[in-house]
């Protein structure tokens, strides 16, 4: 009692292995309060203020410590130029910097590019690059490096999927104007370019490292980012340490210096129960994708903070295959949407944890128009009228509608893997199935393995409904999903197998302007047009949902792909 320990010391006695359960942590907090109360009681005797120490402890970033981040899915490759799946972009954000940093409103701020100029015709982007930036392998980040990145992305050996979808058809070439100026030349105007480049999918990598080939680059890509990859222990974790020479935080980062954390253990905990248990027991500091079933427990736990972010892009939806004999008819599509009661189905399957998203783009997308938030409200009568009008007037023995002796059956194959289709999704599908039955539509749920599902996508006649989502930082995602160009590319993106000339025109106009008001007008029109087509039954937005221990501060989620930013994060108590 002679020298009251500040709470920081009280914490460090717990060591790296902190109090294990939330209850135990609460006890630890109570103990900290006691040590705090002691100096307050002694304050009269001239002791310093313990309360002040606590406040400093929480609000001033402290250096040091290892943060354990636990996520559900493991990437196949740590180089996000390859393939392009979400787990890649989340982890890549920690060791790669992009040229620009996206803001919620769709604008961008400087990052590795300090400024840029867009030519009047919208086909030339001249970037000025930050000087004095080095990759963590010691090589310089310069105009040649940017050019090399685009080369690598376009090289078939890189096996890129996502990046190519943003570049194909628009990107012509990247040229170094001098050491710190680079020009991107486009085939046609493309205003989504900057938001696209903000994604960690377009993070800048060291040309020297990329030259090692895909195999080495997948294991340990090298960037200019706040952390660097030390080791990837497959099926367990990726070890990241701070880049002590970091000089290139984005303009919107609160921390403009090197990261506060010494290191990050990026763990893979597929099982929902385990992942949440790791957070509750203090074995993980931050978890990605708080299981919906644990949401209530997490909210009630004062030691856990929840951060939720709605991804920009196309929400999770069921696409209505317009080449199928059933959904070729607009009236049947509209009836299907009206009968689904999608809003209640989502809210009930996901315990009101996931919001309903009825629009073709999610509410997190720039130029989202809430006029289309609930485009086809539940209406059994209307659905019945539409089906009658479409000629599905007969009934079979089971009560399903028929037309010309054929029953109104909708085949819906979905991935049986619970990692791809979580149990709540299956509940959601079953709810919709039950609702459709009321109006006489028979939905056949077909749980199949990934290979079989891939095969169905190669044969449009083998399914009527397909579940999908597409995260994208721009409303141009509507074009990516439903345009003549996408339809012609036939890469399984346009699962409605449909396009609309008017929609194409509006969306292409959108790419030709960078003016926010004009874009808003055009993209609102597009959303309305898409709603009218009834090509898809939108269900819920894709989200980044983080569960964060109260001992961690400063974590935020960037808006291009919902990537968690840990360069601003710090542990209360610093080193543990």
């Amino acid at each position, binding site marked *: 009692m002679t020298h009251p320990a500040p709470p920081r010391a009280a914490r460090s006695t717990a060591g790296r292995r902190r109090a*294990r*359960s939330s209850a*135990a942590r609460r006890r630890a907090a109570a103990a900290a309060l006691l040590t705090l109360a002691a100096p307050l009681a002694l304050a009269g005797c001239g002791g310093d203020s313990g309360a002040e120490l606590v406040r400093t402890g929480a609000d001033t970033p402290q250096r040091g410590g290892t943060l354990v981040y636990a996520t559900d899915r*493991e990437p*196949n*490759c740590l180089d996000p130029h390859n*393939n*392009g*799946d979400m787990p890649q972009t989340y982890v890549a954000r920690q060791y790669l910097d992009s040229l620009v940093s996206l803001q919620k409103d769709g604008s961008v701020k400087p990052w590795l590019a300090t400024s840029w100029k867009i030519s009047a015709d919208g086909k030339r982007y001249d970037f000025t690059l930050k000087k004095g930036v080095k990759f963590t392998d010691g090589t310089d980040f310069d105009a040649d490096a940017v050019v090399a990145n685009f080369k690598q992305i376009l090289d*078939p*050996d890189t*096996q*890129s*999927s*996502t990046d*190519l*979808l943003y570049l*194909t058809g628009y990107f012509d070439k990247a040229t170094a104007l001098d050491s710190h100026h680079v020009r991107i030349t486009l085939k046609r105007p493309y205003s989504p370019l900057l938001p696209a480049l903000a994604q960690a999918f377009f993070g800048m990598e060291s040309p020297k490292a990329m030259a090692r080939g*895909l*195999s080495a680059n*997948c*294991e340990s890509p090298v960037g200019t980012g706040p952390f660097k990859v030390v080791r990837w*222990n*497959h*099926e*367990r974790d990726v070890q990241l340490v701070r880049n002590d020479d970091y000089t290139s935080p984005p303009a919107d980062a609160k921390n403009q210096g090197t990261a506060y954390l010494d290191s990050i253990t990026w*763990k*893979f*905990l*597929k*099982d929902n*129960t*385990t992942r949440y*248990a*790791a957070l*509750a*027991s203090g*074995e*993980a500091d931050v978890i990605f994708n708080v299981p919906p079933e644990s949401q209530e427990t997490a909210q009630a736990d004062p030691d856990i903070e929840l951060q939720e972010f709605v991804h920009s892009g196309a929400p999770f939806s069921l696409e209505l295959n317009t080449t199928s004999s059933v959904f070729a008819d607009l009236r049947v599509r509209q009836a299907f949407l009206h009968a689904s009661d999608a809003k209640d189905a989502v809210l009930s399957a996901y315990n009101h944890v996931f919001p309903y998203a009825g629009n073709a783009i999610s509410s997190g997308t720039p130029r989202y128009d809430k006029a289309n938030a609930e485009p086809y409200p539940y209406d059994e009568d209307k659905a019945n009228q539409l089906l009658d009008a479409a000629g599905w007037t007969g009934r079979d023995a089971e009560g399903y509608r028929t037309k010309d002796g054929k029953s109104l059956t909708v085949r819906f194959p979905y991935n049986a*893997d619970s990692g791809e289709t979580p149990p709540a999704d299956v509940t959601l599908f079953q709810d919709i199935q039950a609702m459709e039955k009321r109006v006489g539509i028979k939905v056949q749920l077909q749980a199949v*393995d*990934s*290979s*079989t*599902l*891939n*095969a169905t*996508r*190669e044969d449009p006649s083998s399914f009527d409904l397909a579940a*999908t989502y*597409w995260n994208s930082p721009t409303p141009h995602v509507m074009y990516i999903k439903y345009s003549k160009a996408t339809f012609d*590319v*036939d*890469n*399984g*993106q346009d699962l409605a197998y449909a396009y609309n000339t008017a929609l194409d025109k509006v969306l292409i106009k959108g790419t030709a302007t960078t003016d926010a008001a004009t874009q808003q007008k055009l993209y609102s029109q597009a959303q309305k047009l898409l709603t009218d087509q009834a090509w898809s039954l939108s269900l819920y937005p894709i989200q980044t949902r983080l569960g964060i221990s109260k001992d961690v501060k400063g974590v935020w989620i960037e808006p291009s792909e919902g990537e968690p930013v840990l360069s601003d994060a710090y542990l209360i108590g610093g080193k543990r």
Partner: protein
Amino acid sequence: MPAWILHVARRVLTAATLLLAVGTIVFFLEQAVPGDPAVAILGGTAAHPTKEAVEAVTQAYGFDQPVLVQYLHFLSGLLRLDFGDSYTLKQPVTEVIGTQLGPTLLLTVTALGLAWVLSVTSVLLTAGRRGVWGRIGSAVETIAAGLPQFWLGLVLLLVFAVRLQLFPVLGTGVAGLVLPALTLAIPLAGFLGQVTRDEFEDKLRQPFVLSGRSRGVSEARLRAASVLRHAALPGITLSGWGLGSLISGAVIVEIIFARQGLGQVLVTAVNAQDLPLVIGITFVVALSYVVANLLTDLAYVAVDPRLRTTVRRTA
């Protein structure tokens, strides 16, 4: 001496033939899997790879060649024990397996050991006992044998790691091995206990037990030393199968307790149609069955002296 070598040579040849057959079956099964492997390599249809990208991968991996050519190519690799590179992970299959095999073996061997400890304890304490103890032992074994691992794992996790905090949630170190190993061990212990108990109770009725008793050997010593030795044989036979099934079934435990291991890799590989990796892991599992059976034979000899003399006589 030469007979001994012949015995080993025959064993090795059988194993090699078996592995070749396994490899061939898996190869043609993978050919029969629907869906384009090139699309799977590019992240599946959900990744929406462009046609050009699919084309490039198809050529790079030779998917456009006739199946027979692909098979010969596969065979020649197999002979050199070169499984190639994993399609998805881009790493040599041997390397991927090398890093994942250790944790899986540690888990399964520990689980097998634990299963024996549990089943022997249960049998020694309760088998052949009249009244309630014998029935309880038998009932516990039957229930244990029927416990599904995915359920048992979660229950152990929630009770012992989350609520009682006796063990960590994430399986690292020795403390982290206990719950995963128990998850695998308890159902197996049930099986082992059941077969050992039947045999044990049968052997208890043998004349040698009576003669032991009449010589004044204590009941406990009689059970632990003489009867158990006789009764263990069926359990040992089952262990060979048990070890193999533990390795192929480790995946559930590996996922729940977030352990590194082959099981997780196999599931990912199958989903991604990663042929080289699937074949590599299937090989390892098949090999583990072969080795386990070999060990079973040796254990037989160690436990049953009669077999020892027979072997010596033939040698």
